[in-house]
């Protein structure tokens, strides 16, 4: 049943055609135009807007938790995450991003908490994803300088170094991009000591309309035994999302 729903949703998204101004995937090129390539990557991963439901699984050596959530996104500036199922404390929890600001709605406390901007790189709700990951706070096109490091027949390897004014917690991100689909396969995040702080792997790549979309993301921090994955149960991209979805007042009311 669930698969059927996913298929239906995917079918709906498939009806939208590839935007005309979108650079094509330069599969054959050994020296792709990185700006265009990354624009395509970002567009296909995020779309101009999206509504998705995901299952997040957080594993540590001591416990495993599963959260079901719904995510809305619009452009770079708006995002909302709502926990639909989880423990009694988490159900109804929300994270809202408007412009550069972030708020959490805490259902048990019945209050909204503004997340200090310094905590964008901190863990989102105890997972191994950061707040920034969840709400797409940074843009690989706008916030990073890219350099093609190496390539194989199957993949390009691109290093992303944050630009000066970007609010990025990483020192460097190594991205491995699949040449056939223009979708990342693996990202390695380096901290300021030059050590790999976490790796993100992308899997379950589905074809949705013109785009390829990784429906499963797994983050492994350097800490042994921890892992968080997000699996999309459904995703609709480039669809109409009403503006009041991202209303702070609605968040404060816990709706």
């Amino acid at each position, binding site marked *: 049943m669930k698969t059927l729903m996913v298929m239906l949703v995917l079918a709906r998204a498939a009806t939208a055609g590839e935007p005309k101004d979108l650079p094509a995937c330069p599969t054959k090129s050994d020296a792709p135009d990185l700006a265009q390539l990354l624009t395509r990557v970002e567009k296909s991963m995020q779309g101009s807007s999206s509504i998705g439901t995901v299952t997040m699984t957080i594993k540590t050596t001591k416990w495993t938790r599963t959260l079901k959530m719904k995510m809305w996104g619009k452009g770079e500036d708006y995002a909302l995450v709502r926990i639909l199922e989880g423990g009694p404390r988490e159900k109804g929890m929300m994270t809202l991003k408007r412009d550069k600001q972030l708020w959490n709605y805490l259902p048990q406390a019945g209050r909204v908490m*503004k997340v200090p901007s310094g905590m964008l790189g901190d863990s989102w709700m105890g997972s191994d994803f950061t707040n920034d990951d969840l709400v797409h706070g940074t843009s690989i096109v706008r916030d990073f300088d890219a350099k093609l490091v190496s390539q194989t027949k199957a993949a390009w390897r691109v290093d992303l170094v944050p630009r000066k004014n970007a609010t990025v917690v990483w020192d460097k991100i190594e991205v491995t991009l699949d040449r056939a689909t223009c979708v990342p396969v693996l990202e390695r995040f380096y901290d300021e000591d030059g050590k790999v702080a976490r790796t993100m792997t992308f899997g379950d790549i589905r074809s949705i309309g013109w785009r390829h979309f990784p429906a499963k993301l797994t983050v492994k921090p350097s800490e042994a035994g921890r892992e968080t994955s997000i699996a999309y149960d459904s995703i609709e991209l480039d669809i109409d999302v009403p503006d009041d979805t991202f209303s702070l007042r609605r968040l404060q009311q816990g709706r």
Partner: protein
Amino acid sequence: MLLRLAWRNIWRNRRRTIISLLALAMGVMAIISIHSFRISANEVIVEAVTRGLVGDVQVHARGYQDEPELDKVVPAPAVVDAMLAAFVPSARTERRVIGGGLASASDAATSALVLGIEPEKPDARALVKIERGRWLAPRAAGEAARAAARGDDRPPAREAVIGKTLANELGVTVGGEVVLVSQAADGSLANERYTVVGLGDVGNEDANATSVFLHIQDAQELFALGTGVHQIIVRGSDDATRMRALLDPSLEVVSWTQIIPDLKSSMDSKERNSRLLDLIVFLIVALGILNTMTMATFERTRELGVLAALGTRRRRILAMILIESLMLGVLGFAIGLALAFALLTGLGTTSMGGFGNAEFMGVRMPETIDMTIQSGPVIKSAIISALTMLAGGLIPAIRAARQNPIDAMRHV
């Protein structure tokens, strides 16, 4: 007879004797004062530490000291309390839950250290100096359970006392509310709202800027710990060995010297340094005395020769000179003691020097201490000065006693 002779002898060269006495007295004074200062300071520090957050001894789940983690708890603190109450009657215990989190109010949020404590206990009450509002309301044992039995799922009001700097940062005051967010021990997302009932001074700036005090039951609930606690603070007894033997081996018992090894080792190294100082001071004094006594006997070579010729036994000559030296010692020591006493009483309250205002484990050291003369260094310096005088006097005394009376009398 010998005593009177010796007494008269030492005053024959008044100036030299006074200088020697002063040298010794200064040495004695320096040593007594330095050690007394050190010991007084240590007492104050240990008192501050054990009275504060650290306590004399702490009981944790094994491994907590090296790597504190939210889920490492003492599962049944009541058992520990009962064991200690039965077998170490002087011990007072106080339970703690400690966790990190994010505290927020209106539009501000900052990281906080959440301390669940037993507000009913005077030791816990003493941790915070309330500046506005009041301390956390005591809660009778079992109140939460009774409330739950009544079907009241929001039993007693959740109260918080927060550090004054944190209150400023969050823009809350007494009567306001603060929201705490954290990850609980079971991985769930702890989030709860508390009414701020008091703002206080926790003793140092860091603590004032981060501390949130909750009733221990509220903290246990927030962090999903059940009846578990992270620390059981023991005061009134520092017998960690005995407690270790009494308690379940799954618990660790650590004394404050293990909790703040830096403080202990700094105290130890200060003691070692001052011992070296003792040695140097008395070596100098001993050389001075040796010089004085050598001169004193050398000057009297002929006189001593006459004494010997008159039939005074060598042993008596030896004894006489040693007594002279000892008399110098006793006098010098007495003067030194008096000076030290005058100095310490005169100083009365003094600055703590290197330790002043320093912090160990969130305990701010007092800036000043009350100086008291310590019996330890007094006894020590008495023994050392006696030995010094004997050592300084022995060589000249032996030499004088061994002299051939005829050679001695010919001596010019």
